[in-house]
């Protein structure tokens, strides 16, 4: 496989469903997924992420546009002719087959000999540390175990790309966290490109090399988890991932690489991540943990604490800086003697350079 060719190219894909009124599931989506990447499609339900996965798998055909797998057009190929495999949300293990038969099914359909299949099945069971489960039936396994088998069943035929459709959503929290690490390990060990669909931002953050945030059938942002969090492109991304303070400002001056935006005579310097004119109304995003508390005399912002909630690792403060703006501020609880402001107290907030992000909308 040529490493420079993207594993999957989604070129201007449109997907309509003929209903009344017609549904636009995907609206002109273009995405390139690199070889050996852990790629996540993230978005709320109905954003089109599962539709995109089903288009790649071949269960549905795009209305317009094309999907390429390592440079080859997938158009007109049935799911059984595509070297990609899917891990389904409901696992979909074949209930009438043993675990070993389930894992070997793909290879059997590809016409491999039973000796070869037995070897692969053994390796796959070892990969998820379930060596002794080969002769059991799916309904004798717990949810987490079924999940692991569904995973290796899809990995057994060595697909070029593995598609995962919210595979962790049916598991309880503890198991889900363990499976995240396991998935990441499997991706590194097998070197197979993973395309993971989820609505859970935490899942997306902790496993992915890159994340595509989707909403209403459109790609909102495609970046590393860090950039998605630190430099959200628009209001949707800023709100969907983590908590955020949105501040209405006006562009007051422009430099080569930055704008100065002001809100009630408070000036923020922000990178030119999108193009605006002096005088435009723009929104800035600042994450709650970026602020630090200083005395009310110093600091860029000054305000009154109106609420304080102790959350264990952090204390969440709500600071009112003017009649229309309340900011959420997160202070880490480093030691017990730490003096935190009380409700009603006036505090100063400092904002490090580059903490504020200019949004497109």
């Amino acid at each position, binding site marked *: 496989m040529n490493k420079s060719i993207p594993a999957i190219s989604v070129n201007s894909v449109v997907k309509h469903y003929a209903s009344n009124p017609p549904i636009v599931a995907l609206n002109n989506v273009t995405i390139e997924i690199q070889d050996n990447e852990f790629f996540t499609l993230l978005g709320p339900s109905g954003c089109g992420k599962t539709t995109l996965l089903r288009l790649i798998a071949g269960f549905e055909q795009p209305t317009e546009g094309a999907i390429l797998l390592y440079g080859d057009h997938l158009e007109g190929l049935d799911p059984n002719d595509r070297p990609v495999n899917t891990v*389904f949300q409901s696992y979909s293990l074949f209930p009438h087959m043993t675990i070993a038969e389930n894992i070997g099914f793909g290879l059997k359909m590809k016409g491999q000999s039973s000796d070869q299949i037995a070897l692969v099945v053994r390796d796959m069971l070892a990969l998820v540390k379930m060596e002794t489960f080969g002769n059991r039936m799916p*309904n004798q396994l717990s949810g987490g175990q079924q999940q692991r088998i569904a995973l290796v069943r899809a990995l057994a*035929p060595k697909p070029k790309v593995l598609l995962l459709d919210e595979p962790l959503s049916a598991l309880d929290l503890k198991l889900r966290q363990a499976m995240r690490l396991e998935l990441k390990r499997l991706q590194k060990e097998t070197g197979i490109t993973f395309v993971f669909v989820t609505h859970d931002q935490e899942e997306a953050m902790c496993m992915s090399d890159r994340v595509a945030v989707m909403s209403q059938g459109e790609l909102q942002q495609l970046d590393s988890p860090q950039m998605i969090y630190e430099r959200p492109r628009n209001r949707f991304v800023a709100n969907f991932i983590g908590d955020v303070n949105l501040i209405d400002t006006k562009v007051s001056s422009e430099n080569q690489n930055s704008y100065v935006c002001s809100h009630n005579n408070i000036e923020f310097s922000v990178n030119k991540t999108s193009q605006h004119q002096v005088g435009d109304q723009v929104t800035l995003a600042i994450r709650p943990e970026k602020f630090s508390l200083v005395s009310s005399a110093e600091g860029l912002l000054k305000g009154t604490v109106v609420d304080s909630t102790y959350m264990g690792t952090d204390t969440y403060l709500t600071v009112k800086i003017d009649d229309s703006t309340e900011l959420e501020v997160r202070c880490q609880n480093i030691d017990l003697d730490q003096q935190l402001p009380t409700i009603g107290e006036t505090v100063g907030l400092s904002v490090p350079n580059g903490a504020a992000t200019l949004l497109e909308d």
Partner: protein
Amino acid sequence: MASNIGRSSSNTNKGRIPWLKWWACIFFVYLYGPIAVLIAFSFNDNRIAQVWTEFSTKWYVKAFSNEAIQNAIINSLIVAAVATVCATLFATMAALILSKGMFKGQTLCLGIISLPLLVPEIATAVATLSFFAAINFPLGLTSIIVAHIVFCIPFAFMPIRARLAGMDETLQEAGRDLYANDIKVLWHIVLPQLKPGIFAGGILAFIISIDDFIISLMVAGAGATTLPLYIYGMIRLGVSPEINAVSTVLFLVSLTLVATYWFISKKNEGSNYVH
């Protein structure tokens, strides 16, 4: 007091209507009394069927050494076996096509398949006979088989369709995803999943066929006597204890099959699915 406890507890209805169980008893006697009498008198030694003398199995021996009865049983088994296999085959194909949801008029098709369940049997019988006469189809065992296949299809169809409707669609997607083409998906995934439904449909068709009387009476040719037709013929000559014995056997065969059907349906309800 017992009924008070019954009312206050939300998950038990015990004792709520105390006389209900007596009604149930009367109902069961009403339902199964005649059959119990039939079975009892089949073991009666007396030549006159309705007068009890002592226990004996001689009517069973006599009935089953009667060549005419043997022939009737063989005819019935041939008809039921062939009709069951063919009807189940057609019903399976119909259920598979209708489950795809690919064409217009699907609801109409479903209605047409299920309609024979509601049409009065005598109407079907007369219609079948007229049809055979119109196309000059010779009446005999073959004509009975053809007629039975037709009316067994909806009975075989129902459990198969129910099973198919309860099947997880993504299993077929998983199969296709794992390199199985449509035929292989059908063979390796759909049919094994459907097996209990097909089996139940087959049993139902067999029961319906083996004790059918009206249609068989119309379309049977000379020498093509099935067991129910033979029993009817004997009864016209007076109730003989032999009939009791044969009827008892027929009843037990049906009972066994119904029980099997019930156990299969019961098993289908959960254990075969992955949760």
